[in-house]
């Protein structure tokens, strides 16, 4: 019995902190330690849900997710093959382009937003371009470095067994660099989501970011907190989903990673 309790305790240890956080969120403003107008108590925030409307909230979340999905898929579809070609087939070109790519990657997408709007027009494409710009870089760089770090001994070993170029790519290079590629895709996805919320506050008429922007304009403070809460939950869910995909794809390193954790 005791053992069950202690294992439950261990599993919930990090959840306790969240519970304390939410409890404080309720108690601190409602007990008057902080002005409740600026820091809305948790229950008041939750009561905002029916006011906005379940349907509206669900629509906001789904629209934002759709944009994240489109942006992420396009950036992955662009960055992965580009990384493979640059690192695998044209290492000299990759080295030549590296400073330029690094330079470009340092430009925050919001600065380019007006340019994107001019080029791609107002609406969906401008927003999606912003998140593509932010996600492409980590995926590209991690793919290139993953391929550069493939153990030459393994390539040699495959060559000694008469593996052709395609087999070496599929059976050695790809699995070797998969952990690095997944890391890049995960940072890309996180950035996609963060940048999307930002982009939606600037130029959209739907989505979670837009809802935040509206709440701000109408000065409905509880709604701002509500949307922040929802954004955090959705972001966490995306992260967990990706972690799960990573774990199912990369089974051979399980033990090593556990040992580190």
């Amino acid at each position: 019995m005791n053992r069950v309790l202690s294992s439950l305790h261990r599993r919930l240890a990090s959840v306790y902190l969240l519970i304390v956080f939410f409890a404080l969120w309720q108690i601190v403003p409602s007990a008057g330690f902080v002005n409740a107008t600026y820091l809305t108590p948790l229950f008041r925030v939750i009561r905002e849900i029916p006011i906005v409307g379940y349907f509206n909230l669900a629509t906001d979340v789904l629209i934002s997710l759709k944009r994240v999905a489109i942006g992420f898929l396009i950036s992955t579809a662009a960055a992965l093959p580009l990384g493979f070609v640059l690192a695998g087939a044209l290492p000299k070109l990759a080295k030549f382009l590296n400073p330029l790519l690094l330079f470009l990657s340092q430009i925050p997408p919001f600065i380019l937003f007006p340019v994107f709007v001019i080029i791609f027009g107002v609406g969906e494409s401008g927003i999606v371009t912003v998140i593509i710009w932010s996600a492409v870089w980590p995926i590209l760089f991690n793919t290139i470095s993953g391929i550069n770090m493939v153990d030459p001994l393994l390539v040699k070993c495959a060559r000694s067994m008469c593996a052709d170029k395609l087999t070496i790519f599929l059976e050695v290079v790809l699995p070797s660099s998969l952990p690095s590629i997944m890391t890049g895709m995960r940072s890309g996805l996180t950035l996609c989501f963060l940048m999307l919320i930002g982009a939606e506050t600037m130029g959209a008429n739907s989505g979670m970011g837009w809802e935040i922007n509206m709440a701000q304009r109408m000065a409905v403070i509880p709604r701002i907190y509500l949307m922040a809460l929802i954004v955090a939950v959705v972001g966490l869910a995306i992260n967990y989903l990706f972690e799960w995909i990573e774990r199912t794809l990369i089974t051979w390193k399980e033990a090593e990673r556990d040992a580190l954790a």
Partner: protein
Amino acid sequence: MSENKISIENACKYFYGKERRGAASKFVAIRNVSLDVREGELLSIVGPSGCGKSTLLDLLAGLEPLSDGAIYIDGGKVTGPDLRRGIVLQGYALFPWRTVRENVEFGLEIKDAEKKEMKETSQHFIKLVGLEDFADKYPHELSGGMRQRVALARALAYGPEILLMDEPFAAVDAQTRETLQEELLHIWEETRKTIIFITHSIDEAIFLSDRVAVMTSSPGSIKSILSVDIERPRNSDRATAEFSSLRREIWSLLQNDAARGDEIEQEYCGEKAV
């Protein structure tokens, strides 16, 4: 005496460094190596570290082109990798994302073997190296000696006529090493493959081989080839008079070379700027 299986004629290998002040630096890794290996022979190569043993094996496997000279196998010139030659590279070189079985099956997959045949073959060789209980484990779950066996099973699985082994038992303890040596001899006696075996251990070379080739330090060439005329099966305590005298002989051949080290170093510098 049977026909030569492998015939190395004046093999040379140069590595070219980055160009500096207009002159490309040239490093001679192997110089004029000539060596014949008979069908079914087990020949060991010993030599100081960096003398070009692994390089020679790469040339034999067809993984690197020769700079000069030629290598013939069954009378045909070596031009590239071939599944008739199996190589166990220095370091285990196992694919970490493949289980033991999948590692062993790599060469068979390339051969486009049938699923059923592939399974039977890999099973056979996994059993041969005594890993049947670990067939579905990943390399990181195995000990060093076990990984070594997987690498051996993988090279054996696609049925090469020649086995090239680069310090395969270097990373295991003395006990395991002796077990692996016995196992290798067992496999060799069963399959009668031609084996070239690189090692740093003089004892290992004598215990295993029909002949031992001693290499000079860099740039490597064959210094001497000694026949080991000790009757098989050989005594595993390795303390007979024949064994000791061979050990002393090889040791002094390697020792002489170490004393000549300075001279060789200079020679190498002179050759560097070509």
